[in-house]
């Protein structure tokens, strides 16, 4: 976080979108995340994507659970209502919200712990219900807010604070979502705006459950991989005192690479991420093939990024349960209450 308050002054030259709004209209108050945290890049990408597609900010509802990632709705779209709920249970809040008003755009923000550990059940069931929402997992492979425990998405073999290697395999939520009927499945990297922003825009436009597993490095607690770098003063200090109370400022990690190519991204702690961007020719229309391809790449140690699967023909929850076109929260007593006459008939049926 930076100590300098953001200027609220609208610079005349800031580009405006179709609605005449600048990016400022999509921003939020200052972030209180660590300097360089990948989650802040996600916030920025959301601001950019929403601005670019010219959606009215108040037509968006932001939802989250608990975690560093789940704090971010506070840092973007301040004209949108938001719900920072409880740990791992955002999907149910989103389901109810969406049931009440099908006309808003729902953007859920979660963490790997929030979604894949405590929230796995709710996540899977929201996917299965084909809830019309964008579900972003800000995946740093750790519990940021509680200081660095492994989550169910922490990579096998990655080192914990204590120095142990994670002996459990990571859940691949993208593949899971594919199995469970998500109709838009993508993976990206928070530092790769050129890929992430277009995916976000597509996800918002998509009707159905759109999940984006967004790799988003925790610069403070992530992985603690056996560093390839030599002496790390900070780690030594924190380890010696058995408390990680020194968190130096870090730079955001950015990367860019071409579709079809692979790229190694080195994280602050020295660990390396092998990204592989789906080629333009890749056909994301077959869920079974997509899942197969994903798993094969994973065996090679590569993390596929890009739009893995999309299906635009599938109905969403409202179509499935066949609700009226008007949002339910706009129905009044005349729509809803059958009145005294009908009640008299019902009384008859109880006689």
């Amino acid at each position: 976080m930076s100590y300098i308050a953001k200027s609220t002054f609208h610079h005349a030259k800031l580009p405006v979108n179709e609605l005449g709004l600048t990016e400022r209209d999509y921003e939020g108050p200052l972030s209180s995340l660590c300097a360089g945290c990948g989650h802040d890049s996600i916030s920025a990408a959301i601001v950019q994507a929403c601005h670019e597609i010219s959606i009215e900010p108040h037509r968006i509802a932001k939802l989250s659970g608990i975690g560093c990632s789940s704090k971010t709705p506070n840092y973007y779209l301040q004209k949108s209502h938001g719900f920072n709920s409880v740990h791992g249970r955002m999907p149910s809040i989103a389901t109810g919200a969406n049931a009440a008003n099908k006309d808003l755009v729902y953007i859920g923000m979660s963490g790997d712990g929030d979604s894949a550990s405590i929230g796995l059940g709710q996540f899977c069931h929201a996917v299965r219900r084909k809830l019309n929402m964008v579900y972003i997992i800000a995946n740093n492979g750790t519990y940021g807010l509680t200081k660095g425990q492994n989550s169910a998405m922490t990579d096998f073999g990655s080192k914990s604070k204590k120095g142990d290697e994670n002996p459990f395999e990571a859940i691949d939520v993208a593949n899971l979502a594919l199995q469970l009927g998500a109709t838009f499945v993508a993976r990206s990297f928070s530092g790769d705006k050129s890929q992430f922003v277009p995916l976000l825009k597509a996800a918002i436009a998509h009707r159905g459950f759109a999940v984006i597993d967004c790799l988003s490095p925790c610069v403070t607690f992530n992985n603690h991989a056996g560093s390839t770098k030599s002496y790390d003063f900070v780690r030594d200090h924190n380890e010696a005192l058995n408390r990680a109370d020194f968190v130096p400022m870090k730079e955001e990690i950015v990367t860019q690479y071409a579709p079809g190519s692979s790229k190694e991204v080195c994280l602050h702690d020295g660990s390396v991420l092998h990204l592989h961007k789906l080629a333009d020719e890749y056909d994301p229309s077959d869920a079974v093939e997509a899942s197969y391809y994903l798993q094969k790449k994973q065996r090679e140690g590569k993390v596929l990024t890009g739009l893995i699967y999309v299906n635009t023909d599938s109905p969403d929850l409202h179509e499935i349960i066949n609700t009226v076109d008007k949002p339910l929260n706009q129905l009044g007593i005349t729509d809803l209450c059958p009145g005294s006459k009908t009640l008299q008939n019902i009384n008859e049926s109880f006689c």
Partner: protein
Amino acid sequence: MRVVQEVNSNSKLNEFVIKFANVNGTGSASANHLFAKSIFRMGVPVSPRNIFPSNIQGLPTWYEVRVSEKGYLGRKEIVDIMVAMNPQSFQSDVDSVEPGGYLLYDSTMPLDLSKYREDIHWIGIPITEICIREFSNPKQRQLFKNIVYVGALVALLKMNFSIVKNLVKDQFSGKEKLITPNVFALELGYQWVKENVSVPFSIRVEQSNKLDNKILVDGNTAAGLGCVYGGATVAAWYPITPSTSLVESYDKYCERLRIDPGSGKKKFAIVQAEDELAALGMVIGASWNGARAFTATSGPGVSLMTEFLGLAYFAEVPVVLFNVQRGGPSTGMPTRTQQSDLLACAYASHGDTKHILLFPANPTECFELAVAAFDIAERFQTPVITLSDLELGMNDWTTDKLEWDDEEQYDRGKVLSKDDLDSLDNWGRYNDVDGDGIGYRTYPGVHPDKGAFLIRGTSHDAFARYSERGDDYVEGMERLQRKFATAAAALPVPVIRSARQQSLYGVIYYGTTDPAMDEALDLLAEKDIELDAMRIRAFPFREAVFAFMEHHTRVFVVEQNRDGQMRTLLINEGDINPAKLTSVCHFDGTPITAQFIADSISLSLEELIPSVQPSKSRVSKKGA
């Protein structure tokens, strides 16, 4: 074959208990219901109770019908007539009949009556034999056994046969081909009695006129209907006995009354959640977003909802939750009744939390309080938990007709429209501008520039901003107390039944203790024990409740749990001296009886009047 012994002379007209002992899954419940409803149609007050196992097929199940011209509809423990159709439970069913009572049984297989008690009337009807003779389809042979004994009872009790036959026609309307064999089966039983039973039967049902404004319905059906009338559009739930039928009722009536005629689409959304946590999360999400939403569950579900209840309390989101209580703790007795979730609901969740509770006592109140729950939840922006129980939710009650005033408008509470927001300058979601502890809400999407905020379970200031400052926190928590006090004064008033003469003694009760209490007060009055009675309908308590305790030197608190949970709420919230409040607790899973209450209170008064002593030690408890 027929075995009838010496006849009991004092005839019981419209005043008796009949109990059916069956095997689960044999279709007896619908036959027994047919019997009960026929009596209702004859204008006689009736209260049927289905006592069923947590099982689908093959275990003992009972159906008790209390018939009471006087209108005493609480459970009564004696059995005047037993229809003993279950070999598994036969001996204990025989044992439970009152001396001089009647026992009907299937005499197809000969029974050595010399092995059984002689002080009751035995009526053997060759039911199986009749069915085998008259039906060829094996399923019909099985199912119509139940209808045959209903036919027999119609004859024995001298009921109006055409009322029974018409009821069959009503029930099977739409499935006409089922009517003929059912009526035929009724006739078989009826005729068999007419032809074979000549001895007089001292119990009779006669047409009456006690049910002018009454209906026969179960509490869950009425509550589900209340949700329709109350304007609920989102229901999220997870199946659990005994609450399931509440949502099923909502579903059924919505399918009938809430389909958009043009498109055939639904003006409601029912989501069967993956569990109770999710169900309540959905309700919170929907309520936050401006829909009226509810869920229904039972004890285990409430326990799972505990975290979310705290969120709704602290973030101030309306929640309507029906807890149809069953026997706890844990999975407990899933098909038995209890009032044992009061503490779990009143103080649900960690931290300093308190929730509004409503206590319906009959299906009519289930309907009314369901409607009211939405108004209350939205007005006070907080969870409202309606505590019904299995006895009320799943059994048919003779109850007042449901009423609706077409002038009624929903009270959506303090919600700001776009125009409101335009005219406001310094709105803060949790600002107590009116001094009643209630802030003004906004729905998502209401205004392009104003009124948006991030709702949260973390501590916040009056403007809904995250805050770790002690003073912001204390301000909010004290406002919540204020809001609770505001609510107390606005909740349903208690129902008072005063003694005929002034009394030092009072009794407080709630929910399904109601019918038993009516009778118990009369029983006590017969012994010249006069009590003022107050039925509580809501928590937090109104001043009237505290005044009632103030005005009596001793107050009995009658409830259906072990630990006297209502008594705990009374002393804790009202700073009442516990010495004044004597618990009368019945908690074996069966509905409380008038006799139990009357015995407990009179015993206690006998013991205690000389020196009034504190008595948390319960005056009596009960294992049936």
